[in-house]
């Protein structure tokens, strides 16, 4: 590619949005509109003929380099497959307590689990699985936690009432003995 085409390619790559043709011309004041147009054509042709995973498209009021649609599916799939993390047993327990006892404060969670859950609460908050839903009464008006909409989404529940009732649990658990 010629040097103007290389400059345009770098700018199109670095820009967060599509760039209109007249703005591209600002990159090199020596270049005529015709030269810019020719350079864009050169990039487009290069991507198409030479076999690239990207293409140059004019859309959204300007020029943009985009990945070719035939690869998006594989890329999306790979992103989903990349090291899915599991919650630790302690995090799941904390989440379970919050799901069934919400709104609940940190002290009560610690009371049930027998250990403090400060770090776990923080990571569940960061993952968006729980939220601060209220302030409790009592010393220091503790934060009260509840599950978030993302929690429902993650467990494919429409609403919290779809969680098995506690007395149903034994049966549900026997029916689906999944190893952790």
């Amino acid at each position, binding site marked *: 590619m010629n040097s103007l085409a290389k400059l345009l390619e770098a700018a199109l790559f670095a*820009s967060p949005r599509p760039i209109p043709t007249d703005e591209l011309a600002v990159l090199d004041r020596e270049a005529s509109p015709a030269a810019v147009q020719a350079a864009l054509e050169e990039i487009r042709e290069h991507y198409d003929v030479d076999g690239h995973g990207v293409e140059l498209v004019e859309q959204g009021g300007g020029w943009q380099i985009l990945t070719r649609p035939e690869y998006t599916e594989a890329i999306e799939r790979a992103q989903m497959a990349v090291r899915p993390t599991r919650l630790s*047993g302690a995090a799941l327990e904390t989440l379970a307590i919050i799901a069934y006892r919400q709104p609940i404060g940190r002290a009560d969670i610690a009371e*049930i689990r027998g250990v403090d859950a*400060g770090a776990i609460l923080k990571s569940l908050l960061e993952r968006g699985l729980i939220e601060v839903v209220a302030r409790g009464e009592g*010393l*220091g*008006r503790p934060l009260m936690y509840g599950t978030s909409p993302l929690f429902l989404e993650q*467990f494919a529940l429409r609403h919290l009432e779809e969680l098995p009732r506690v007395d149903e*649990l034994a049966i549900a658990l026997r029916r689906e003995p999944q190893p952790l």
Partner: protein
Amino acid sequence: MDDLAAVAPLAGGGFIVDVGDFNGPLDLLLSLIRDEKIDIYDIPIARVCEQFLVRMRDLALNEAAEYLEMAARLLRIKAHMLLPRHDGQDNWDDPRAELVRRLLEYQQMREVVDVLERLGEDRRNRFARSYSPELAPPPQAPLALSLAELLLAVDRVLRAARKPTLHEVISRSLDVDGAIITVRAVLALRAMARWRDVIRPDPEPWEVLSCLLALLELAKRNELRLAQLKPFADVEIRREFAGEAA
């Protein structure tokens, strides 16, 4: 060096310095040693001490605690050097040793800074792609969760909770840790709080004391700042350090 914070040439040294160029007393000391072409392993401590004080005065650093501390340290070493030494004594503990060690350590780190500066500048001159397509990568690796896992966790909790909870009765001592947790939690929600936000109404004396100690401890750790705008006004508790949030 620009002339913004420059000072006039010193009588003894004859150089111009710029406050903005110094990252602390060790940096100042190191530049002094370099300018005076001093062997770092054999520092003429009396001269260096004198120069350091002169520079502190000329740079108006007299107020900065860390520079004052270094000045005091130099004076102390100078005094030690004046103590008589016995001839032929091999195991003389050089009072400059600790200072030399710190200077070398600092110098080493400055060398790394040069490397980082070069690498960082090189990288700064290259752009990554900033356009985020629809398939922007998730901020965290996706979670693998199943309802069965959650239910098993519930089961574990229920089984554990069935054990009778025994409360140990002890005389009330202070609970500073608990108060720290409370204060952090409040400050995680809002940048500024008042006393009544972190303590319950009608508190017991031990609660007041715990909370007070917690506030002082957190202020010491720079997690919050305490201010009282006028006498008897509400004490303002302001979050200082986002990294410490609950």
